């Protein structure tokens, strides 16, 4: 995020785009509510009537998959009505003329059919955003999980640049990141193109720096993104194939798109190592399982969504019968056995090594995290006076070599797999408020399990339910070109009749049996928010209920779960 979460409440206008804070980040969502109480206007852009829509001044209930058409149209109106910040554009950016030319054809009337939004509402939204004086954009997976995603992010940045909404308190654009430490894993260089601290592997000086620090020659070839692994296992020529996969704290056999293909690739691997705290769908394919300490059993640092480094601390010891090690210790031992010794006493020693290699993190010492709790990078000086940085791009200085922001001019592209006669509905995935990721943690929490359990729900407009003759709670079969699953019908006016929605942590109601592995060409993120499906009524509900129970029991038995519970249950 360019700005801190604590700044949200001071914005005068919030453009909340494809981001459902109430379900994915309840504690961030309360800042949206507080902003409203302090007088901010709220525009909610979402195909569903989410909680934010209920308190919004304007809800643009766009058609799924029309993001960039709408964003370009907002730019069209801002430019056409002369609401741009011309000084900011002239002094702090380049590429505006190209964008101005491109968005000419995106009048609100021209995109009305694509977006299903009335032109007057697009105009109203553009005026509100451009004239508040302090507008902030928050976006989420409703932007990122499309085959056209990065260019929508750039399109949202266009709006912020052309109205000068960058580099001050309470403005900017905020991708509110999903998992607790997804920002941290990126910060640490668990990315195929960058060393820790966003230092690119293809830059010779960067490579030389890390070669010197680590004492070995390093590769300057950009690595394989996670979502390309099935292709590299199954379809690449022999000399390019991936043969060994070391999966650490992830569950691709549950969380990745097109599970049929994922399973096939896991089976084909010569060697699969899974390091985790719980049995997962993926660990069933493992050749080796390495048991690690859980979040409450070790020390370290997380980075929250607005670049804040915070300590995690060991709260309890692992269970007495658990022969587990910390993740970094396991990897260090394997490295040492492979001839590259790694010896660390504790996480602080590792932290001190890495912050000295990353100029933007150098000042964020354990001492400061103890003292200030939260230190937002960039924090460059170890001096206690440097407490970090709440918002980026101060005074319009951007991270590009010339220090200026760059406009992006890109046309809208329709989603990859469109609805058709055989699969007439739009299928999209979303989040469950009480569960997390593949639910290996929350599924094992009594209270959260009691809130929601297998096989999950499919959100359907009541008119669609009526047409298909299905009622609330009834089991239905959901089918796409790639697979099918069984889940429960949840009629809700929150969704339009043309689209249905499922959350992604269920084994029986596994929505990723249906999803498509169409990827954004830059981020390589799958199009989880759009593919074509149909919903089928199941006539024999008694059979269906039995099927769900039996399948659930079968999967748990394959994982060796004691049906009576574990040692401390």
């Amino acid at each position, binding site marked *: 995020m360019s700005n801190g979460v604590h700044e949200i409440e001071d914005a005068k206008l919030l453009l909340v785009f494809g981001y459902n804070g109430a379900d994915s980040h309840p504690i961030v969502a309360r800042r949206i509510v507080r902003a409203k109480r302090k007088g901010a206007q709220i525009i909610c852009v979402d195909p569903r009537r989410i909680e934010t829509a209920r308190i919004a001044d304007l809800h643009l209930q766009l058609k799924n998959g029309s993001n960039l058409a709408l964003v370009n149209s907002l730019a069209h109106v801002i430019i056409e009505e002369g609401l741009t910040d011309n000084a900011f554009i002239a002094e702090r950016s380049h590429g505006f003329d190209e964008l101005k030319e491109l968005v000419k054809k995106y009048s609100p009337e021209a995109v009305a059919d694509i977006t299903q939004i009335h032109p007057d509402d697009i105009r109203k939204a553009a005026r509100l955003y451009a004239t508040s004086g302090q507008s902030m954009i928050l976006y989420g997976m409703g932007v990122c999980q499309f085959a056209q995603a990065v260019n929508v992010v750039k399109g949202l940045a266009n709006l912020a640049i052309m109205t000068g909404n960058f580099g001050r308190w309470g403005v900017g654009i905020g991708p509110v990141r999903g998992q607790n430490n997804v920002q941290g894993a990126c910060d640490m260089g668990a*990315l195929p193109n960058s060393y820790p601290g966003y230092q690119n592997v293809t830059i010779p000086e960067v490579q030389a720096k890390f070669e010197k620090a680590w004492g070995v020659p390093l590769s300057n070839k950009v690595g394989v993104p996670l979502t390309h692994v099935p292709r590299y296992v199954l379809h690449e020529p022999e000399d390019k194939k991936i043969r*060994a996969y070391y999966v650490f704290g992830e569950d691709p056999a549950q969380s990745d798109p097109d599970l049929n293909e994922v399973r096939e690739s896991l089976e084909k691997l010569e060697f699969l190592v899974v390091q985790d705290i719980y049995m997962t769908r993926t660990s069933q394919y493992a050749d080796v399982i390495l048991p690690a300490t859980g979040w409450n059993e070790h020390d370290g640092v997380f980075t929250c969504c607005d670049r804040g480094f915070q300590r995690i*601390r060991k709260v309890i010891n692992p269970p007495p019968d658990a022969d587990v090690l910390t993740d970094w210790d396991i990897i260090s031992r394997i490295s040492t056995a492979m001839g590259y010794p790694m010896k660390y006493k504790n996480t602080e020693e590792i932290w001190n090594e890495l912050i000295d290699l990353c100029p933007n993190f150098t000042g964020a010492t354990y001492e400061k995290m103890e003292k200030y709790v939260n230190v937002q990078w960039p924090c460059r000086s170890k001096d206690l006076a440097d407490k970090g940085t709440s918002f980026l791009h101060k005074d319009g200085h951007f991270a590009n070599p010339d220090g200026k922001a760059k406009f992006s001019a890109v046309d809208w592209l329709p989603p990859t797999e469109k609805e058709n006669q055989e699969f007439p509905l739009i299928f999209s995935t979303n989040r469950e*408020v009480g569960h997390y990721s593949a639910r290996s943690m929350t599924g*094992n929490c009594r209270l959260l399990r009691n809130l929601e359990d297998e096989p999950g729900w499919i959100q359907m407009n009541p008119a669609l339910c009526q047409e298909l003759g299905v009622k609330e709670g009834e089991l239905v079969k959901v089918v796409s070109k790639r697979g099918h699953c069984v889940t429960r019908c949840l009629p809700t006016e929150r969704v339009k009749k043309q689209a249905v929605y499922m959350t992604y942590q269920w084994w029986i109601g596994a929505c990723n049996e249906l999803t498509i592995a169409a990827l954004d060409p830059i981020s390589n993120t799958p199009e989880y928010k759009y593919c074509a499906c149909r919903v089928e009524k199941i006539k024999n509900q008694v059979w269906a209920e039995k099927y769900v129970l039996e399948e659930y029991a079968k999967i748990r038995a394959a994982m060796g779960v004691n049906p009576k519970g574990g040692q401390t249950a």
Partner: protein
Amino acid sequence: MPIKEVQTTCSYCGAGCQILFKVDPDQNKILEAVPAQGRTNEGTLCLKGHYGWDYINDPQILTKRLKKPMIRQGGKGAPLVEVSWDEAVNHVASRLSEIKAKHGPDAIMCTGSARGAGNEANYIMQKFARATIGTNNVDHCARI
């Protein structure tokens, strides 16, 4: 022993809320999780923050806690067998070394973890991929 209090960062979602755990050190058991003062959460928590920590006690509600290193000694399709850490570590090291020697470092892929492991473990994993194996094939679920 008296009740111990430890403050940490919640492991669900990117908000980064601060939680104070009250622990019985004799029983090695968490008694309660209460909201602490963090920059973002300011003494509040959501339902996952309040109630999302008893998985650590291995209640086997959904799955079971992994407690011992395991290897499929009979090869693909064979059952997983519990082994010592030395055996597991040496097995992984020798299989990865073999694959690297035969097919090159880019035949191996590693992931980081965006969940409870923490930044230091991610730093070590990418260093392992880059310095030990010799590949930039390291990524994590930021993409998904």
